[in-house]
């Protein structure tokens, strides 16, 4: 029996991250750029746990109480709830067992499959602004190569490229010319300490440059491209590896740029008298969408380092306290550093902060404990919250007015997903089920633009994935509880805040939006392959099971 590998349906974290760094994923509502985000809700590479007492603390400010207890580092789990691969009207799903990739027309539900390499697993969409074809690329883990899949005027073609041994992620440039297969160590199972995962395969998808396997620094965590697609940047533990894509006869790695993260500075928790844990964590690096700058945050260090990727210049920006989060605006024109211990945020203009490191604006958020920030797509507001404490409040910071209002929620925040228009947000909550209760999770629909109350929705299974429609009026939240075999999908309507529940026959893996077909979809864990489409307007659901079978329907149109 063929198995549609769950991993094969998931978009790589890097693609989601690179959305904000110069590449794009067409046709789908992407998740939000994580910063080294892990897979499971509640856990990231910090290893922090909700409610734990670790990390530094200084200053004051908490959730309405005026004091800041010792709180652990914030967790970023938005990347865990990532979307599968969709391009235009098509949803792509790989079957590692059969060696085929299915692409399903979300409008007609016609299923076609195409042979890829041996063990196609990791898929990513490839933008095609020129021909507007539906293009995707997949890593074939067993044959250690990659297959480029292109649908041009209804005809599917393939092209094979070399890849690397352990590649499990993709970085694709905004123009769709370059794709880099690399290994995200956080997705590897029990990696050996000596496994560096340093090989990356640089593929010129549309140009003449030869496919090249290069070595970057130790354990890359993120890849991004410059806006002009001449360089790629790999954030590693050895610094930022710079890949010259167009110079010479083939792509090559140029001398790395150090991140120059300041040495860990032990701080003392005055209340406990014990030193806070020093940090050996990888720095939190954000790269601007034009690939010009990288901003580096190290947990516990009261400063942000700005790296000019063009020449490696480092600029240190001292801050009043150690930021617990550093978030770039999607437009790349500013960044927000959340100063949890100061109950404030610092807004760093880019690139102005380089010339004047003190030119950031500090906005106090008195009475609130905020440790995380997410900037809406248009940059008009930032959502401030904390995942390190059971604070059931969400603060909306209006930009550039720098005023804020706080929305009362009814459960602690786990993850936040604002719509592109900044009008609403889906907030996943951290819920500890009570014994005997059928409620295993909750999420809220929050009107962040208007002064309206949030609507909390109790669900019988923990939410596992979120997708937002580009039209900003629909959201999908999948639910999964394997112990009770409860599988479901909630369709959220905005601005009415209605929720339409659907029961799923199989465990959901990921959700997404096929914008061209005005349908949402949820891929499910089923041996023969299963996906359910939901008409976003009418609400009707259709399930397609058996991708290989669906592709083998012969209608006489082809010999």
């Amino acid at each position, binding site marked *: *029996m*063929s198995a549609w590998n769950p991993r094969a349906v998931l978009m790589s974290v890097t693609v989601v991250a690179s959305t904000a760094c110069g590449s794009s994923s067409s046709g789908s509502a992407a998740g939000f750029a994580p910063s080294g985000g892990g897979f499971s809700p509640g856990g990231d590479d910090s290893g922090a746990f909700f409610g734990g007492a670790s990390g530094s603390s200084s200053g004051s400010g908490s959730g309405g109480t005026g004091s800041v207890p010792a709180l652990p580092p914030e967790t970023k789990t938005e990347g865990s709830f990532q979307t599968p691969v969709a391009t235009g009207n098509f949803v792509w799903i790989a079957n590692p*067992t*059969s060696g085929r990739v299915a692409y399903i027309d979300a409008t*007609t*539900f*016609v*299923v076609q499959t195409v042979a890829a390499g041996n063990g196609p697993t990791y898929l990513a969409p490839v933008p095609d602004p020129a021909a507007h074809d539906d293009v995707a690329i997949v890593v074939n883990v067993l044959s250690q190569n990659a297959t480029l899949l292109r649908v041009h005027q*209804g005809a599917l073609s393939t092209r094979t490229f070399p890849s690397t041994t352990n590649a499990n992620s993709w970085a694709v440039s905004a123009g769709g010319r370059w794709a880099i297969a690399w290994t995200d160590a956080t997705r590897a199972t029990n990696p050996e300490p000596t496994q560096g995962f340093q090989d990356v395969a640089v593929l010129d998808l549309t140009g003449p440059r030869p496919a090249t396997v290069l070595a970057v620094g130790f354990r890359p965590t993120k890849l991004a491209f410059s806006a002009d697609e001449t360089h790629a940047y790999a954030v590693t533990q050895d610094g930022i590896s710079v890949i010259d894509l167009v110079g010479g006869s083939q792509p090559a790695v140029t001398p790395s740029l150090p991140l120059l993260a300041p040495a860990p500075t032990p701080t003392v928790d005055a209340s406990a008298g014990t030193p806070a844990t020093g940090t050996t964590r990888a720095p939190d690096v954000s790269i601007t969408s034009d690939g010009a700058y990288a901003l580096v945050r190290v947990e516990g260090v009261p400063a942000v380092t700005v790296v000019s990727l063009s020449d490696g210049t480092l600029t240190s920006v001292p801050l009043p306290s150690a930021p617990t989060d550093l978030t770039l605006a999607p437009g790349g024109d500013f960044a927000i550093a959340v100063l949890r211990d100061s109950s404030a945020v610092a807004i760093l203009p880019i690139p102005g902060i380089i010339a004047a490191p003190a030119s950031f604006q500090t906005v106090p958020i008195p009475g609130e404990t905020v440790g995380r920030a997410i900037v809406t797509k248009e940059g008009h507001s930032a959502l401030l919250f904390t995942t390190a404490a059971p604070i059931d409040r969400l603060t909306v910071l209006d930009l550039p007015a720098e005023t804020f209002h706080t929305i009362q929620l009814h459960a602690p925040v786990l993850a936040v997903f604002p719509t592109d228009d900044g009008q609403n947000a889906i907030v996943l909550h951290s819920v500890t089920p009570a014994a005997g209760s059928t409620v295993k999770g909750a999420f809220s629909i929050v009107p962040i633009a208007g002064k309206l109350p949030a609507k909390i929705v109790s669900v019988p299974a923990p939410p596992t994935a979120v997708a937002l429609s580009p039209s900003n009026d629909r959201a999908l939240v999948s639910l999964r509880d394997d112990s009770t075999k409860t599988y479901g999908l909630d369709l959220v309507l905005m601005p009415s805040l209605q929720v339409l529940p*659907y*029961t*799923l*026959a*199989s465990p959901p893996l990921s959700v997404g939006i096929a914008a061209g077909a005005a349908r949402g979809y949820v891929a499910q864990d089923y041996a*023969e392959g*299963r996906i*359910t489409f939901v008409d976003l307007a009418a609400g*009707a*659901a*259709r*399930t*397609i*099971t*058996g991708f*290989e*079978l*669906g592709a*083998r*329907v*012969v*209608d*006489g*149109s082809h010999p």
Partner: protein
Amino acid sequence: MSLARGDVPSCYLHDGRVTWSLVAMTALASGGCGSRPSYWDSNVGTPTAQGLANGVALVDDANHRAVLLTAEADQQLSRASFSVGHQVRNVVASPDGKRLFVLSTGDWPRHSAGDERPSLTVIDTSSGATPTRYPLPEPLPDLAIDPQGRYAVAYAGAQSTSASFVQNPNEIVLFDLKPSSQTDSPNPVSRSIRSFGGSPSRLTFTPELCVHAAISCAGKDGAPAPGQRRLLLIESDIDVTLLDLDHAFLATPPAEITVRLTSGASARVVAPRGLAVDGYDMSSPGDARIALRTDDSNVFTILLGPSTGTPNDFAPTINLTDVGGAPSSIAFVHTDQGLRVAALVPSASNAVLVEPDTSLTTQIALPAPYASMSLVTSVVDAASTAPSGTDTALLWGSATGSGVAFWTLGKTVGQPYRSIEVLPDVTQPIRSVHDVPGKNPQLKVLELSQGSGFLVLDLLARTASPLHTAQTPTLAISPDGSGMWAFAPDGTDLARISFPSLTPLPLTTDLSIQAVYDVARRDGGRALVAIHSRGTLGATVFDADNPDTATARRVPALLLEGP
């Protein structure tokens, strides 16, 4: 006394009465009437008897004829002879019993230009029109008749013996049975169905289905809507083919659509075992669904929808649902939660309701591993003062006893308790269930798997009345539903059981009975024609409305005279 054909000259007319004088016959024979056709020297052979609405057809292949026996007043039988093709291979009656289809393979080997080729002869017994003879390109042994009477298909089924040295099992011949004056397209049409190694085994004609959402499915002035279509579903041993019947007779018909059931991921071949069609609302786009059960644990649901273009303007999308075991029977049912595919899974002793569009399943534990079901909603709901809009099914066929049960689907989802009602009166395993048409639709006749006797089930009263027989009977239901007949095969015992009183009336015949046919009489009323396959075939005719051996008439030598 049996009479050989050669003893009867062609100039002698038979009046249907058993009054022969051997001396007279010998004198006539010895006097002679000149040369005679060869059929007078050939044996009758083994004619095929086929019951029709208003008579019995005896297909005399040796003499290339079908003799239609019509019941007259006073238990008389009149005969009319019709020419059929040579080498009869299959005889089928239309579902309404008004037409007889005779499939012939023709003369083989052909020694002269006059030797017949394969053909299909259609005899309309209600209109008395001249039979229609359709030529066939090659001899085909099997015949499927459209329940609506519009189409017929000749084919070589997977189980059939080849009719010629080399046979293409995927060649089918489609017949449009509309009167030729209304048909301006080629008729019949021969097609070789696309095959991936399988051969057709079962053919199903769908009702009108709304297959095209983009074109209206609401017909105007009685004309069929463009979006409505009738399909021929051809199950082979490995796949299912959908053929557009309504466009099959075009000069360039669209290619058929083949739904392959085996993914190719393993060497195991999935074989279809039966299907159900839902076209409940033929004006509703997206309502055309087909459910298919196979020899594995999946139920396939195929939804027809618009395609992207040629060659067909509709396309199927497939959904699989694992029901936990090989289903023995499936049907589209209406529950209080909407349309479902009901699947019986005897190996798990349960039933599974599958939501066809989402693959969500609801399991219903059954008190016994029932293997068969039929919907009885039309009877149950018709008698109800408040029709539920949901279906009721009759379950039977358990190998372990617990004869029959009623499954009320309106109480299934969310309230499985009490949705299954076992009929305590029936404890024996049931082999088959026969519908009673006409005036007593609330009755079902249950044949037992073991032993003799049978049961008459009243769906409304939920009672089952046993009727004992001295030996295993063969049963025949009256088409008007007024009663039934039971006889001992190759015996002389016969009984009439009236509905709904269930009063058995014993009867007998002089000769052993091979088959009985309850037919309409030309003068009104009904007659029972019991066939005796001795000699040139005989019959005993009873008044079906008031059967009495005293008034029965034996009619011998039904095929004695020439064609």
